[in-house]
């Protein structure tokens, strides 16, 4: 028994899942959208509510009854109840961990090991898993822990539960990787891959796939290292056949494993990038393109904007025609209108000679500026200002602006063009204020608060571009009337 300081009250225990594990997914830096939460995606089968119908049950399934519902038990009862003391012990461990008292937590954990004695629990996270998770977390933070201790602890944990053998192996490998022990991690992964334990192996199929994928990833890293070495050599003018052979074998091992994982629906940004890199190096562009478009367009995969970005970057690298680039970005625009590539997209479309595309360009930049994250993006505002100006000067298609403006005129003025924002933008970023003032002047007329404030301040500071802006807006004030629909009613 742990030394219970608060015997009697508060029997509620910590619940499942120590914070380590599961989430310690290794992620490589880089990538346009580092979600890096690798995960399988299956079809979410609608499940019936666990306790629908019975009103006496909690509205929410709680793992343990809220502690305020317990009656304080007498100390005698308390000692007898193994289960309760187990829970109490767990709560002390949790308490210590949350206060970063790792030493104290470790002491409690040694007591908690007793709970393995009668482990008939059917809970989501059983004691053995709890010990593994808590132990890992403590060892990660404890000041006196070393890698050797960590390894021996994990080895024990592996034997403790065959049900999650591969999970433990994977987490162990991650830990080694994070500490820069790539070789050890590789060894561990290959060992885990060859693990066979009857039905348990098939039950842990997902973990096995991940293990193979990460092994493939490590193969890819060694391949890219060898590749760099070879490139150095080539620059030096000599050859090393053994390195080359090694490199090819790494390639083969990596390619097989990576190819396998990216066929399962999920978010595999890291693996896809590596695989495409391999294919590209060996000139298999068709395969690479196939992989990327499958990753982007297969409806079984979750809608992942990164997939489209990779495809776009790939196509751009290989000098594909503008048309296909635009079609890729068009889909990205449909999924994520606030993607940063939308500026490139807009520029690309503005340059286009086709009317339809220029129209799309206007739509894209308007849609991007709807988002709160783009509010102060000078680039986007200048894109919009430029295109709107162009349309006004050429006096072709002012109805485009009108159409875009119609759905926004009830909230853009307060969202973008309030007096408060005029003041702030002017103070913080003059060029942003200028670009926004151009748009405001055209869309809302010269009486718009934003335009008035900024142009007034600009003229006061004797800045030339603000004076020309004022002139421009005054000259084209008729456009504003047409956009806002004021002139329509008079005609």
């Amino acid at each position, binding site marked *: 028994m742990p030394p219970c300081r608060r015997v009697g009250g508060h029997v509620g225990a910590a619940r499942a899942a120590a914070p380590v594990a599961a989430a310690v997914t290794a992620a490589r830096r*880089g990538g*346009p959208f580092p979600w890096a939460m690798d*995960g399988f995606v299956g079809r*979410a089968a609608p499940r*019936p509510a*666990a306790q629908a119908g019975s009103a006496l049950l909690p509205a929410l*399934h709680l793992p343990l009854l809220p502690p305020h519902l317990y009656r304080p038990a007498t100390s005698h009862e308390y000692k007898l109840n193994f289960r309760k003391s187990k829970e109490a012990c767990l709560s002390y461990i949790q308490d210590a961990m949350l206060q970063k008292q790792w030493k104290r937590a470790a002491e409690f954990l040694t007591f908690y090991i007793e709970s393995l004695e009668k482990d008939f629990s059917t809970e989501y996270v059983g004691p053995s898993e709890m010990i593994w998770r808590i132990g890992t977390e403590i060892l990660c933070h404890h000041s006196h822990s070393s890698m050797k201790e960590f390894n021996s602890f994990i080895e024990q944990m592996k034997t403790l539960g065959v049900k999650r053998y591969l999970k433990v192996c994977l987490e162990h490998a991650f830990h080694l990787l994070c500490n820069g022990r790539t070789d050890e991690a590789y060894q561990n992964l290959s060992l885990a891959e060859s693990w066979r334990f009857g039905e348990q192996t098939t039950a842990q199929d997902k973990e096995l796939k991940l293990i193979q994928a990460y092994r493939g990833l490590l193969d890819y890293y060694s391949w890219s290292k060898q590749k760099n070495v070879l490139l150095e050599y080539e620059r030096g003018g000599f050859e090393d056949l053994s390195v080359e052979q090694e490199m090819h074998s790494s390639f083969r091992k990596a390619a097989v494993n990576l190819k396998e994982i990216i066929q399962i629906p999920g978010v595999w940004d890291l693996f896809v990038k590596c695989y495409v890199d391999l294919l590209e190096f060996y000139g298999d562009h068709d395969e690479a393109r196939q992989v990327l478009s499958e990753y982007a367009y297969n409806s079984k995969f979750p809608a992942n904007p990164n997939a489209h970005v990779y495809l776009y970057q790939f196509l751009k690298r290989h000098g594909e025609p503008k048309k296909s680039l635009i079609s890729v970005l068009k889909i990205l625009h449909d999924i994520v209108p606030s993607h940063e590539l939308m500026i490139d997209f807009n520029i690309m479309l503005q340059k286009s000679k086709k009317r339809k595309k220029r129209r799309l360009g206007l739509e894209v930049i308007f849609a991007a500026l709807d988002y709160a994250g783009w509010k102060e993006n000078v680039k986007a505002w200048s894109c919009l200002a430029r295109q709107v100006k162009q349309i006004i000067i050429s006096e072709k298609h002012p109805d485009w602006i009108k159409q875009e403006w119609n759905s926004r005129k009830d909230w853009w003025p307060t969202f973008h063009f309030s007096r408060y924002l005029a003041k702030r933008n002017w103070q913080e970023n003059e060029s942003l204020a200028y670009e926004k003032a151009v748009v405001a002047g055209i869309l809302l007329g010269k009486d718009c608060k934003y335009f008035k404030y900024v142009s007034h301040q600009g003229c006061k500071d004797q800045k030339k571009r603000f004076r020309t802006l004022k002139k421009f807006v005054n000259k084209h004030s008729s456009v504003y009337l047409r956009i806002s629909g004021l002139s329509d009613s008079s005609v």
Partner: protein
Amino acid sequence: QAETPFVARRGGAGESWEPAGVAAAPFLPPNAGCWVPSLMPQDILYRGVLRRKLRSGKSGAALDFTKQLGHFFVDHPEDAFGSLGQLLHKNFYLGNAKLRRQARDTTIRMTPLVEEINRLEARHGCPQQHLTSRVRWFSHLCRDWLFEVPLDLLADCVHDELVLQWASLLFDDSSTGGALAWLPPEDAGARTGRLVYPRGPAMNQLYFQDVVLGEVPRARGSPAQFELNGRIRQVAAAQVDGEGFVGVRSDYHCGVWRVRGRTGAAPAPLQVIRTSVPASCLTVSPHLPGELAVCTQSGAVYLWSVETGLQQLRQDPQTMFFRDHSPWRWSDFTAHPRVLSCADRTGLQCLDTRAPGRCHFDFFKVGEEAGCQQGERVVLPLYLGRPHPSQHLVATQFAVYVMDERLPLVPVLKWAHMMQDPPLFAHVVPGGPGRSHKLLLGASHTQELLLLQYTALSLHPSAGGSKSACQLAGPPQKLHSISGCLQHLPQQLPHRHQLLQQRLGAPAAGLTAVLHAQGQRESLLVFQLSEAGDVFYQTLRHEAAQPSTADGEHKDEAAPSASPVVEALPAVALRYRRWLKALFRDQQELPQQAAGRAPPTISQKRLFTRQDLGPPAGPGTGTLHAWARQQLRRAMRERGRVRRWHPAPAPPPPPQPVDPAAWPDALSTRLTAAWAGDWSHWWEERLGLNMAQRQRALRERRRRQKRARGHRSLSASFTSSVTYQSELSELSDGPPGPGPPLSPGHPDALPQVLAEVWGGSPHHPPPSAEPLLSSQTLRSRGIPKERRKTLRDYLAVCADGAPETPPEPPGSQPCSQGGQLCIPSSQSQLSGSQPRRKRPRMGF
């Protein structure tokens, strides 16, 4: 190739935030007014036992239904058995003595029955438990008719209420979101912000308090205060264009206030909406001024704009992804000002308000994509717009997820929070570029408070921040709960200790945090609100560049010591002392206040004696009597005044040969007069000798009428006598000539005497009968005592035609005046407006 291309998703080094004090400290004086302790499970559970199965979530708790029903019968007997209980009053005997023979036919002895029931109670839990035949017999006999409210109906109501109470004990989501909000000052450098919180005995007063930040924050000035008509469940706030918008949700009302950025500006209420179904969510738009999202428990989601009103976006009583019985709904804003997220227990969807029917996508689903476990449900969604424009937090009872709008369904970050109670409150404090964001999670009943740090790349397209995945930084940290300060307080007397324990242990009701930088020193101030209305705070100091391992060891030694808070910080200690003092003072004042404030109650028992209320024996009067009683009772129940008894019952026909006026011939009148001993008077009148006297009598009558009116309106108050006098003198109009001197025994004295005796009689007997009713006069006429009563009765009948003169009870019947005097003042109207018809009966 970099040496370490791998970084852990969580566990990296976070910033070090160390609590400055050993416990949370009170920020405001205790919330005055009586705080009713919340319901305990023992109150409604069967014998206080929680079944084992309940814990595993497989079976329900046993609610003690019979106990509650029993409580109802004992506490509200009038409502439970009112009428029949009274009717059967005589037939139930509660004494120990044997019944007398004649009573035995109509009365049953209840004592054995009660004993029987008590014995049953004592044998509770005994497996061989038989209902005795007597109890069964009684229950069979009475079940159908004894209860005022049909038993089935009553039982249904009690049962429903019990189930509701139990459900809210297990998990109460009405306070989701929390009722504490912070409004930062307009310019970031200022040190004064505003705290918005509910207070008052019913938590229905909204306070806006200016707060000066510092290591020890303090309130400045007196708060702006609004009284609302409902308990405040949630206070949400957002800052748009330098103005603060505060949304306040109570069960059936939502309101919005605007607070100008300048300190000292009064908050202005803008609009209130009323819902027919309780609202479950209110969030304020961080993008557009005066826009809010409202959800009701009927499954409706509204966009509420102060300018354009309500727009219904969705109305669906069903949950989104699979069936769940919870009516809870939530809605929040997203990176796009026109897109709202809608949540129920099964997940989140995003809706475009411009076309809510068509444009929506699934954002979060409880299921495999997010790696949810069985029974997991969404408890609290939160838009993390300030740290990152497209990220959201989704908290369930097991884990928290960080979601990105651009990659729906797959969480960007997941962490099992291990909290004992589901987190109902969350607050995010954005860290600057290159720093971690602080996320606070709070639970209600257990008062748990966790601090998480996470980093999300600043996806500002122009900012070009470093691109790294969203990750947790450092281990999560537990902050002080309100109840945690109990062990640091000085020893209290047991009853005070208990009070304090109860008060500090009240469930949390809200949480907010402010980052405050003073020069190089940064501190995080965390405010907590409890359901008792107390606001506590704690300060966390940022300790830059300190290796996490070292302080871990340091903590190990320091932690377990429970040093009294008094030694920690003088300012905090002073606060505690003041807070405790105020709390105990409030508690002492409470009973007195309650006594003073309670509305005056009138005991019904004192108003009437049983004899008054008992039905008169006379035939034919029973219905009228019952009806009058009913009227009286109703008036007393409604605390209204007794109005004119309407419709007045038609007077039954008089008994046959009593009206002397029916015999108008000279002989009859003469005989009548002779019988009354007033023959000489009759004769003088007949001869027309006393014209002047009659005129005077007429005038006297008019005067009496007026006086009676005056008396009626002021009958009860003390001042009435004064007014009465003045009125009297004023109204004695006409020739004030005193008339012929009166001699006792002379018939001329009659009207005067009568007026005194009859005071406020509104009824005016015919002049001929009038003088005859005073016993004095009768005596003076020499009518024998035994005949007087007969005469009076006879004449009274003639006078007002009211036949219902009951036989006078043999005992002392209180006279009308005396009877009225014992009615408390509040009942004065009763006598004032009572029909006068009854007077003669009660006359003497």
